[in-house]
C-alpha cells in the first residue's frame, strides 16, 4: 500500500500546474448563471483551450491516476468546471468511443474534444425516474429513419445542446430492458420542443424536452436495435469513476473557508461548531482517500470503475449536505440571505441525494449487488 505518484505522473502534474497558472488569468469573466448562450460559449472556449494544450481527451485516454491528477489540479487552481461539456465528455463521448462505428466516432468525438458541440442526456422521463427501464418514449422504424414521440425530463443544458443521447423504446413487446435503443438526436430537428424547468435554487439548470414525431436517421443509432440498455450501462459506469474528484477538492477548500469565516465572526469560539468542522474535515479526508482507493482499483482492473462508486456517492452526497448545513451554522442570520454564495450552494446541495440515483436507490444497489441480499420490495 502506498500513496505516492510515479515520476511521470508528478511530471504531468507539474506541467499542468504551470500551464494552468499561465492560462487561467487570461480567461474572460464567468458568465451569469442565467445566460445560457454565454455559459455555452464560455464552457466550449475552455474545452478548446484544453484541446490546444493537449489535455482535451484526459477523460478518455489517460490512466485513472492521470485523470485524478488532472481533476485535482484544475479544481485546486480554480479552473472552470466541465459545465456544458459534461455529457459530451463524460457520458455520450465515452459511450460512442466504446460502442460506436468508426464513422460515428469520426463524426461525433472530435467536435466534443475541440469544444464545438454540446450534448445533453435524454434518459429520464416523467414516468421513468429511478425506474429508468420504465421509459416509454416510442420510436418506430420508417425507411432510413426512426420516428420518435414522447417526452424527457431533467435534461441539463437542453437549451444549448446540439445533440441528445436519447433512449427510446423500439420494442414494447420485449421485456423492459430488451426493447430499448440508444439514438443520437439532433436538437434542431423538427418536432423537438425544450421547456426550461426552474430549480428551487432559482436557476434553470435543466429542462423538459418534448418529442413530436421527430425523425432521427437510423445511422444515428449507436449499438444494435433493442440493445440500448446494455449500451447505457456502459455509459453509467463512467459516471461513478472519477466524476466527483474535483468536487471533493472543492469541498475541502470550502471547509477551510468556513473555518476562516468562523474565526472572523466569532462562531469559532463555540466548541460545538468547532468540533463539527473538525468532524467534517475527517469526513472529507476520508472521501479523498476513498477516491484514491477507487482510482487505484480502476487502474489495477484495466480502467473499469468498480462498485466503489455507489459507496462513494452515498457517503459523499450526504457529506456535502452536512457541509452546507454547517455553513449555515457559521453564517448565523446570514444563512437566510440569498446573496450569500454558500446559501445558494446549500440549496444546490439538496439535489445531491436525488440526482444520478437517489440515496435510497443507491442503497438498494449496494445491498443487492455488493452484499448479495435478495431482490424484493
Amino acid at each position, binding site marked *: *500500500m*502506498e*500513496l*505516492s*505518484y*510515479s515520476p511521470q*505522473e508528478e511530471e504531468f502534474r507539474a506541467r499542468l500546474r504551470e500551464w494552468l497558472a499561465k492560462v487561467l488569468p487570461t480567461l474572460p469573466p464567468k458568465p451569469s448563471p442565467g445566460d445560457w448562450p454565454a455559459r455555452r460559449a464560455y464552457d466550449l472556449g475552455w474545452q478548446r483551450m484544453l484541446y490546444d494544450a493537449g489535455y482535451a481527451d484526459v477523460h478518455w485516454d489517460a490512466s485513472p*491516476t492521470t485523470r485524478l491528477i488532472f481533476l485535482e489540479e484544475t479544481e485546486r487552481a480554480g479552473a472552470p468546471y466541465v459545465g456544458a461539456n459534461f455529457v459530451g465528455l463524460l457520458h455520450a463521448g465515452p459511450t460512442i468511443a466504446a460502442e460506436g462505428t468508426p464513422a460515428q466516432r469520426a463524426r461525433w468525438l472530435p467536435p466534443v474534444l475541440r469544444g464545438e458541440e454540446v450534448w445533453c442526456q435524454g434518459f429520464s422521463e416523467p414516468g421513468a425516474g429511478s425506474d429508468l427501464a420504465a421509459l416509454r418514449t416510442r420510436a418506430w422504424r420508417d425507411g432510413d429513419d426512426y420516428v420518435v414521440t414522447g417526452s424527457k425530463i431533467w435534461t441539463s443544458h437542453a437549451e444549448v445542446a446540439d445533440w441528445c443521447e436519447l433512449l427510446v423504446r423500439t420494442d414494447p413487446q420485449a421485456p423492459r430492458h430488451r426493447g430499448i435503443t440508444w439514438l443520437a438526436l439532433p436538437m434542431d430537428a423538427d418536432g423537438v420542443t425544450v421547456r426550461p424547468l426552474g430549480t428551487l435554487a432559482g436557476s434553470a439548470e435543466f429542462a423538459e424536452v418534448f418529442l413530436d414525431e421527430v425523425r432521427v436517421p437510423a445511422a444515428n443509432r449507436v449499438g444494435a436495435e433493442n440493445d440500448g440498455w446494455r449500451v447505457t450501462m456502459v455509459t453509467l459506469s463512467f459516471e461513478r469513476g472519477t466524476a466527483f474528484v474535483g468536487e471533493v477538492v472543492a469541498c475541502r477548500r470550502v*471547509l*477551510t473557508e*468556513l*473555518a*476562516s469565516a468562523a*474565526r472572523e465572526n466569532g462562531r*469559532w469560539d463555540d*466548541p460545538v461548531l*468547532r*468540533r*463539527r*468542522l*473538525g*468532524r467534517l*474535515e*475527517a*469526513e472529507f*479526508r*476520508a*472521501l479523498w*482517500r*476513498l477516491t*484514491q*482507493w477507487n*482510482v*487505484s*482499483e480502476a*487502474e*489495477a482492473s484495466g480502467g473499469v470503475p468498480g462498485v*466503489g462508486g455507489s*459507496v462513494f456517492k*452515498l*457517503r459523499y452526497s450526504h457529506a456535502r449536505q452536512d457541509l452546507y448545513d454547517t455553513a449555515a451554522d457559521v453564517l448565523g442570520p446570514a444563512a437566510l440571505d440569498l446573496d450569500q454564495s454558500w446559501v445558494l450552494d446549500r440549496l444546490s446541495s439538496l439535489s445531491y441525494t436525488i440526482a444520478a440515483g437517489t440515496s*435510497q436507490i*443507491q*442503497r*438498494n444497489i*449496494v*445491498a*443487492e449487488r*455488493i*452484499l*448479495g*441480499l*435478495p*431482490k*424484493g*420490495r
Partner: protein
Amino acid sequence: MRFQLSDDQRALKAGVRELLDGRFGRVALRAAVDAPGRLDRELWRALGDAGFFALRLPEADGGVGLGLPEAVLVFEEAGRALLPGPLVATHLAAGSVPGAATGETVVTAVDGELVEWLDAADVVSGDASDAVPLRSVDPLTPLHRIPAACAAAAPGRRRRETRPAARAGTGAAGPDGCLAGLLTAAEQLGTAVRVQELAVQHARTREQFGQPIGAFQAVKHLCADLLVRAETARVAVYAAAVTGDAADIAAARLLADEAAVRGARDCLQVHGGMGFTWEADVHLHLKRAWVRARRAGGSTESEELLAGRLVV
C-alpha cells in the same frame, strides 16, 4: 499509485485471521466471556511467537521489520476477532520493555482516567497508584479508574514495575498516543467489517413474512449503510497508516469509531430479539467498540486537532 494491499499484505492478513480463528475462535471467545479478568498467557506468548508485538521492530533487534500498514492490518484482524488484552500498549512497549516483544511480559498503559487489564499486567506505563476497579461494561476488558482529582498527581509506583510516561504521552497528542490511536482505529475497523458481515448473514437467512428479512428495503438500507461506513473507515485507516500523519490518524479514529459503534448498533437492530441476548456475539462487539472509543482522548481531541488544521 498503488493504494491497495500488496500480495504480501494480503497474505499477512489472511495468516493472522487463520491464527486467530485457530487460537481464539468462537468457543474460546465465549469461554473468555465466562471467565472475566483472566488473561490467557499462553495465547499471549503465541501472539509474541507470531510476531504480533515485535512486528515493527527492526530484524536486527529480533523483530519482524515491518511497518505501520502491516501493523494496522494485524490489529484490524485482532479487532475483528475481539481478541482480549492490552494489545496496543504491549505492541507499543516492544523494544523498550523487556519481554514485551516476545509476549513474555504483558504491558498496559494509563490512558487518561482509565486503565485496561491492570491486574493482569506485569508492567504499567504511567501512574496507576490511585486506580480503583470498576465493573466494566465489556466482559472482555477489565477496567480501573483513576479519580479525576488524582489525574495530575506526581508519578508514583503502584506495584511491580512502572514505566514513567508523561501524561500527554498517552493522549492523542504524543507520538505514542498517535500510534495508539491508529492501532485502536484499526481494531475498530475490524469490528466495523465484522458486524457488517454478521448483519448481512442474518438478513440473508432469517425469514419473516415468507421471505428473508434482507429482501425488505428497511433492512437492506441498514446493511448498505453498514458497508458504506466500514469501507470509508477502511480507506481512512489504511491511508493514515501509510502517511503516519497526526491529522490523518485523527480522521481515521473518528471514522472508525463511528463505523464500529454505529455499526454494532445497527447490527444489533438487524438481529432483532436475538441481538438483545447475551448468547449472540453482537453485544460483545458493541461493548468493546465503546471501550475503544474512549481511548486516547476520544473524539473531542481528534475533532479539535482537525479543526485546528483548518486554520493553519
